[in-house]
């Protein structure tokens, strides 16, 4: 980075680094809207005639979408600490806050977990005893795919994530007050362990919650695939927060166009990374052409899903890759925000593509259910975000590397 001797940068107006007082009210409003929307979604889902299944299918997509942002936030924070990153300090709190929403997501996971534990939700085929009895393969997998062990694992994953989310946010907020440099060092030492925990839990969570929708199918890269989507999601979300908050008059001197540029570069990189992982999985299965593997893509190659797959290739890879290539785009907040929104939509499309064809592709499209679920879970997620965000500054005020972050310039 730049010269280490200069520790005093421009003195920022840290009073602007907090949410305005109305935010808390907004948060409660979001929460109320979220509950209403979810109730509506459940009612609509049941009314559509598919029972809980119609609701849960959409709910799982929505939950995974918002959880992937929070999970991405945990990854982002842990990576920044591990690598002693300086540039990202003034945007790191945004990621920490995304990670801190985990308790809300843990509660919101109950509608997915309880039906499984009660023995039959229609979503996961391996839950139904008659399906297991009819399949040798499911009997073979039953030591892993059974309701008790599934529930226990879910509790472990969520507990780890809630714990890490709290840990990163609380430690960082405490540093705002006491300016203890030791916290930075402690984070740096702990974060590699956090990354290992996150890697393992994310992998197996994606196996459990998404891959086991088609319990006979398997792919070793699936965890990495889910991670790459989560990375795209958190970077898009951070760009939107960074641009949106500045538009609202918050963090104006904390986040500069240089941060936009760097986040844009990372977004570009992870968009390409997603493409790389998705292509790797597809190429190997397509080329190997083994029926037990190709069934997955067979479900996604015909009818509406064929077009959907094509749209993902173009919309999730080709267009954003071309769009984000130029330095000028990444340094224009509005253009960058456009691509962030675009990629979030594509991330949703990706998750829907993973989940819907497995969970009954032939079902009539329940667009209103899906919309109500997405915005319902999203409102509650945002309510959680606003709740924690209104209790602290939106950038780490006393991080020892804050001056470096405020001062750095992209030379390329």
């Amino acid at each position: 980075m730049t010269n280490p001797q200069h520790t005093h940068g421009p003195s920022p107006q840290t009073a602007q680094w907090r949410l305005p007082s109305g935010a808390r009210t907004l948060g409660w409003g979001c929460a109320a809207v979220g509950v209403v929307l979810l109730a509506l979604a459940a009612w609509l889902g049941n009314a559509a005639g598919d029972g809980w299944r119609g609701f849960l299918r959409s709910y799982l997509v929505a939950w995974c979408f918002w959880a992937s942002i929070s999970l991405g936030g945990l990854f982002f924070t842990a990576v920044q600490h591990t690598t002693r990153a300086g540039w990202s300090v003034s945007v790191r709190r945004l990621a920490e806050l995304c990670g801190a929403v985990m308790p809300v997501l843990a509660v919101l996971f109950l509608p997915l977990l309880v039906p499984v534990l009660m023995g039959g939700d229609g979503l996961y085929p391996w839950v139904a005893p008659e399906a297991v009895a009819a399949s040798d393969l499911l009997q073979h997998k039953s030591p892993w795919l059974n309701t008790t062990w599934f529930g226990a694992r879910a509790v472990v994953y969520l507990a780890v994530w809630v714990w890490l989310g709290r840990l990163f946010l609380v430690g960082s907020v405490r540093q705002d007050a006491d300016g203890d440099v030791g916290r930075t060092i402690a984070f740096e030492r702990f974060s590699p362990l956090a990354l290992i925990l996150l890697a393992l839990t994310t992998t197996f969570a994606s196996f459990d919650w998404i891959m086991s929708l088609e319990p006979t199918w398997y792919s070793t890269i699936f965890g990495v695939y889910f991670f790459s989507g989560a990375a795209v999601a958190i970077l898009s979300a951070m760009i939107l927060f960074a641009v949106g908050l500045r538009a609202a008059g918050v963090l104006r001197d904390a986040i500069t166009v240089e941060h936009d540029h760097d986040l844009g570069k990372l977004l570009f990189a992870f968009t390409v990374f997603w493409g790389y992982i998705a292509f790797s999985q597809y190429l190997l299965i397509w080329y190997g052409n083994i029926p037990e593997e190709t069934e997955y893509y067979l479900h996604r190659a015909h009818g509406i899903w064929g077009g959907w797959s094509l749209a993902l290739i173009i919309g999730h890879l080709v267009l954003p890759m071309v769009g984000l290539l130029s330095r000028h785009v990444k340094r224009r907040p509005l253009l960058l925000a456009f691509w962030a929104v675009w990629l979030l939509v594509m991330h949703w499309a990706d998750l829907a593509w993973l989940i819907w064809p497995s969970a009954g592709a032939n079902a009539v499209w329940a667009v209103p259910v899906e919309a109500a679920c997405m915005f319902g879970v999203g409102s509650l997620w945002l309510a959680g975000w606003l709740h924690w965000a209104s209790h602290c500054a939106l950038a780490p005020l006393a991080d020892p590397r804050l001056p470096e972050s405020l001062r750095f310039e992209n030379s390329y």
Partner: protein
Amino acid sequence: MSVVSAAYEHEHLSDDPRHRAPLTTPGLTASQVDDIVARTPELPRAPAAWYAAFTVSAAVAAMFFALIGYLIVTGIGVWGNNHPVYWAFDITNFVFWIGIGHAGTLISAILFLFRQKWRTSINRFAEAMTIFAVICALIFPGIHMGRIWLAYWMAPYPNQMAMWPQFRSPLMWDVFAVSTYFTVSLLFWYLGLIPDLAVLRDRATGWWRKRLYGLFALGWRGSARQWHVYERAYLFLAALGTPLVLSVHSVVSTDFSVAQLPGWHTTIFPPYFVAGAIFSGFGMVVTLMVPARQFFGLKDLITVRHLDNMNKVILGTSCMVGYAYGLEFFTAWYSGNAYEQFVFINRATGPYAWAYWTMVLCNVVLPQLFWFRWARTTPWLMWLVAIGVNIGMWFERFVIIVTSLSRDYLPSSWQMFVPTWVDLGMLVGSFGLFFTCFLLFCRYLPMVAMAEVKQILPGAHGSEKH
């Protein structure tokens, strides 16, 4: 001229987040950087130890070429390859050397994009290593074809047979990926060398030295207009090199993973191979760096902090490789596929279990030492671990290739692979070639990118903005 760096070691290892630890010995000036780096190329006579090492390496390399000649004249029956183990040491060595070659581009391209400025002290070194490793790698698929004089058949050119190469084959992808990688690495390396060759040219006293360095420096004079274009080109090569380095080992992994052989066909292979390649490449960089910084007096530029950072990368990639090993086992069970399950149980308990456990020990267990700072900063210890990583990564490829092939779907065709003396001689010989190239590089070219190190010295860019 040499500033003793031991006194600054605590400073390099400083954890204090309020200051960035100095990247080189504090107080170093630009001309001292030149003096340190140019010392070895400017020695009138190389040290006796260099001659000794060079003689041994060159002799081993000569043996390598003699064995290649023997192989070409006699045929690939001189190897232990059999039915069904059609690939054994040849492809193992190829993948091993290609993997070694990944650290250079990672350091010069990916760390450049991530603004990891500590890379400036080690990128030249690692890039050179990359090029020599890729040369060693390219030899093996070349000679394993048998009739090597027909290698040009792989090139798409109109011919009297009216035939074209089969572009849907991963082996053709390999030809393109590896040759592109070699070419781009060479260009990247040479572009970085131009300013430093100009320095050696300007410092040179002998007639020949001045002309030779001058020839390759292309008349570089370090003007701002030149630097401007140069920096753009460097950035583009880095930006191209980053996805390239990922693609190359991914393509190498498809040599195996698009097949249906149990143990080969699994979707994690492309990223897993890339992680393994970076792991082994850094292992080799540390293996070479620890003695080289000592022997050639580069401790002021390549500090303990550099070694510390590299060992962290080794630890991280070791964990990724371990993740892939574990996941492969889990999925083999989870898939419910009897063949997959057998292959993995066979790896761990079958006739090649010794190779498998060597791999696990060297790749997953041993690098865990790097969780401790004393292990990351003790040269002799990290050297041993890094050599372990080299051994482990060679065995990883051996395990993947040989265990899967020797126990395929058809038990009646099962056969063990036993290397012949030619197999072993070629493995050793490729190291001879590698070290010969490397020793020549150390003797005649700047081992550290002087122009880049000068940029990161404190105050290099002034303090004013215009």
